[in-house]
């Protein structure tokens, strides 16, 4: 079947390709993030493990950032940019600066939706040399409802009820679809698909902790501690939860 190709010289371009050395500007630092919006809260969670390859750089490197805002503590915006952590840090630092300038220039709080649009322009501004991150922005809208925006590395974004990002996003997302958005669940009495309702904060917190402890079991990049930042009308609360360290 491949007989005609056997005449190829023994030193084909596969084996005899010249050795190339090139600088690769990106790295992957592991970790996973997760955001869920509720009726009166928004929550952004992420593990604190920071890795390269098979090594742990640190077990505790909090990665959920809070942007202080005009209009009181309830207008605070939480941000996480997961992937290549140096790019994530650079993006969040610049975003914090731009958010501050916004309040000086307009003398009003930066809304989460405006912040999301700003993140889009910042990400797309580096379209030809992207920030290697999956970004999530969360907070409360003007009416006090939770909102979550998620972005790809070059700025495509969407408002969502919940979103997972980072190393173990593919493990978390189906669980979230099922438990938060009630996908593939039917009502036993009526036979109709169950409809997603806003989960109370207590339930969501349990869900998030279970999600991360489960993902820690099966993904080697996730572990050590879980950091959860919750935005309510009282402001931003931080919670830590221990994860397995192996």
């Amino acid at each position, binding site marked *: 079947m*491949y007989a005609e*190709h*056997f005449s*190829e010289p023994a030193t*084909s*371009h*596969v*084996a005899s390709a010249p050795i190339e050395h090139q600088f690769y500007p990106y790295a992957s630092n592991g970790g996973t993030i997760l955001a869920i919006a509720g009726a009166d809260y928004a929550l952004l969670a992420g593990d604190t493990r920071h*890795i390269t*390859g*098979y*090594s*742990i750089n640190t077990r505790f490197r909090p990665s959920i950032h809070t942007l202080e805002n005009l209009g009181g503590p309830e207008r605070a915006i939480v941000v996480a940019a997961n992937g290549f952590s140096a790019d994530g840090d650079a993006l969040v630092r610049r975003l914090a600066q731009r958010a501050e300038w916004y309040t000086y220039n307009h003398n009003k709080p930066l809304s989460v939706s405006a912040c999301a649009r700003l993140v889009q322009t910042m990400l797309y501004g580096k379209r030809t040399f992207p920030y290697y991150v999956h970004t999530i922005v969360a907070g409360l809208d003007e009416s006090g409802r939770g909102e979550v925006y998620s972005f790809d590395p070059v700025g495509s974004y969407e408002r969502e009820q919940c979103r997972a990002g980072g*190393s173990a996003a593919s493990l978390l997302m189906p669980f979230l679809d099922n*438990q938060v958005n009630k996908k*593939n*669940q*039917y*009502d*036993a*009495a009526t*036979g109709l698909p*169950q409809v997603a309702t806003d989960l109370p904060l207590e*339930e969501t917190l*349990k*869900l998030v*902790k*279970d999600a991360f*402890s*489960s993902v820690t*079991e*099966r*993904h*080697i*990049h996730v572990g050590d501690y879980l950091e959860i930042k919750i935005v309510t009308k009282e402001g931003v609360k931080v919670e830590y939860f221990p994860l*397995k*360290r*192996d």
Partner: protein
Amino acid sequence: MGGFSFDNYQRNKFLTAKGYPVPTATATGTTIVGCRFDGGVVIAADTRATEGEIVADKNCEKLHRMSPNIWCAGAGTAADCEMVTQLISSNLELHAMSTGRAPRVVTCLTMLKQHLFKYQGHVGAYLIVAGCDPTGPKLFSIHAHGSTDVGYYLSLGSGSMAAMATLESKWKSSMTKQEAMDLCAEAIEAGIWNDLGSGSNVDMCVMEVNKPAVLHRNYRTPNERSIKQKSYVFPRGTTAYLNEKVKPMIKPVAYDIFEETVTSTGGEQMEIDG
């Protein structure tokens, strides 16, 4: 004559060039160690098996029995470790029957290294071989290309640096059995905590002279999963289905009762729930 078949070499090279690379075997991250003590030798391993960054098995067995008194810890390509270990174990048994003697560790070592050298590193087995024979307790390591090392303490696998750090700082000559077991367990734990390729539990095998080898499966379990915060039991009827058909699995057979006897179960009462 044994050896790999290279019939598909040209074809595979062509397919690789076309964008169909040869699938890679799973090289599992692992920590394995071995340590000698007065009157025996102990080997230990972690129990995590990975497929890339996903944990494939949380409690796999990396300790292989070569003969009743020779055991082997394997790192590298999981399938190669398993198969090379099985093959040499068989040949060792045949050798033992033909000589009428219990096999020696050096015999096992030589058979393994000659097999691995023949395959020029393509059989990706990295092994720590240990055991007791009439010449005393023995401890060796073998690399996939066939080179071997002798030592009082050894470590191999992706967690070998973490384990060796422990061994180098805590090892001392003429240890007791318990000291050697503790040292090995601690070295494996260093791999479990600090190497992402290693995790879960510690398996251990202790081989003492003139005693049967003892396998301590899950000698330490420092990674027990905590209880979940929520229950995820779905109520009956949650899953949709298109149609329902019930079939009896066993056809009822007509029979008559001729006699029925009830006998006591003896002194012990049958356990009844509640």
